[in-house]
């Protein structure tokens, strides 16, 4: 019952239902669905690097932020679809340029380096904006929420499909070998550096486009918000709560996160963040297989 055709059917049904949300005609639910698709796209992308290779990135907000910045700047020069493509390309390019040196750093040092790197880029962009005399930027004729939502949904579907394909591909097996033991992986012929770099770049592109879409949604850009480390934190926490290493993990994690955030975020933002922090600790220490693993175990017993 948990076979491959079943899973594909389940994913297709979820995607199909999400595609129908605009028909409800409710701005509120469309907004919620937009956020759901956004986190799915971000977390599946993050997983492509971090869940598969074990190189946990605590700085994925940097790609999201760069995407947002590139979009808001390039919108003066080109139509929205091109600007979005440029956002993705810029994020991928950034990953390509910094990837080689950054991926030489291992384990916990990689984790903290990604965090520091994201903060460095954030501060550089803030400085640049101050120099340009810009404290924030506005967007005036953004596409409708419905159009943005469909674009986001497509990203979520693509990211999920890539995750599903990777899980059983030669590429994915190579990444798993790297996670398990990098020296041994290299000794059996896995081109470790190239694969890591490829995963890093691939995991950056969709977050770049997501950043662009979110700026279009809010019509507002400020560097400290676009590069908010809370985004990176939420990605990692949701991925871990959902369960690493399963395609359904990011979906379950997102569902959980969005419910929690709808209940708490607006009224008790600090309490919401504290609960996320607590969940992160509890899941890492006591439920390393995440919600996806728990459900699987539950199904197995039933």
């Amino acid at each position, binding site marked *: 019952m948990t076979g491959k055709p079943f899973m594909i059917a389940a994913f297709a049904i979820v995607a199909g239902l999400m595609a129908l949300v605009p028909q409800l005609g409710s701005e509120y639910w469309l907004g919620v669905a937009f956020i759901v698709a956004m986190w799915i796209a971000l977390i599946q992308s993050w997983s492509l690097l971090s869940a598969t290779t074990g190189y946990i990135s605590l700085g994925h907000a940097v790609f999201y932020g760069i995407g947002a910045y590139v979009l808001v700047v390039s919108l003066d020069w080109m139509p929205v679809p091109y600007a979005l493509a440029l956002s993705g390309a810029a994020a991928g390019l950034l990953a390509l340029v910094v990837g080689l040196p950054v991926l030489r750093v291992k384990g916990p040092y990689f984790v903290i380096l990604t965090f520091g790197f994201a903060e460095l880029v954030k501060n550089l962009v803030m400085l640049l904006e101050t120099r340009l005399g810009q404290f924030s930027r506005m967007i005036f004729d953004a596409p409708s929420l419905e159009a943005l939502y469909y674009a986001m949904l497509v990203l979520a579907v693509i990211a999920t499909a890539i995750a599903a394909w990777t899980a*059983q591909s*030669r590429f994915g*097996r*190579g990444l*798993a*070998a790297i996670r*398990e*033991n990098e*020296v*041994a*992986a*290299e*000794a*059996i*012929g*896995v*081109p*470790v550096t190239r694969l890591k770099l490829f995963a890093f770049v691939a995991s950056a592109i969709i977050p770049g486009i997501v950043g662009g879409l979110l700026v279009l949604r809010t019509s507002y850009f400020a560097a400290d918000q676009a590069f908010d480390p809370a985004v990176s934190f939420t990605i990692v926490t949701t991925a871990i709560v959902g369960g690493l290493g399963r395609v359904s993990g990011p979906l379950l994690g997102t569902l959980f996160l969005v419910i929690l955030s709808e209940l708490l975020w607006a009224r008790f933002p600090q309490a919401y963040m504290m609960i996320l922090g607590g969940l992160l600790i509890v899941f890492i220490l006591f439920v390393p297989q995440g919600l996806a693993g728990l459900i699987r175990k539950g199904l197995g017993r039933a």
Partner: protein
Amino acid sequence: MTILEVQNVSKQFGGLKALQDVCFSVNEGTIFGLMGANGAGKTTLFGVIAGQIRPNGGSISFAGKPLAGQRPDQICRLGLGRTFQIVRPFGNLTVLDNVIVSAMYGAARTHRLADATQAGRRALEDVGLAPLADQLAASLTLSNQKRLEIARALATGARLVLLDEVMAGLTATEVAEMTETLFRLRRERGLTILIIEHVMGALMNLSDRILVLDHGVPIAMGSPEQVVADENVLKVYFG
């Protein structure tokens, strides 16, 4: 025909000379033994050949191609596999998945899953791990993890494998079995083997030729009979 040629290889760790001017060559289809006390530099030599450790001098060629400057994964894809004395299993993968990655990325480059699975199963059968194929590698006993090291090297499709103390910790019966396995692999796969072993009897039994290292210096080389009769070796081993 020579498959591996090692010339004047030296390696220093800080002030420590781990290898000094090591020279030898291995003929295709033979078993070449490497002997020496703990710390003699045997594992370091494997690291240098397989590309994990960069030597300070000397040259190595495999199947006529110089290995200088090649990365370990490139060397592996040329057909040279190795095991690690301190085992490095892919612990959270099954035993079968361990060898499937090998088959997919090694010299064989078996991209299709079905073919890679077949190659992997064959390697597991060769070392007697087939019944444990679906277990997680981390759950194996140490001697089975050593077998897995061999299977992974075989599954790459290597023509030459470097085996680093794969018999340490095996019982006498298991040593005999493993010896038999290695002979069979040479026979059936035409495999060339470079082997480090502390179990002296087994090494004498297996090897066509043996090189003895002492503190990084090669002190004797020849057939097992020649080596045990060598006065340098006798001095080092028996004082």
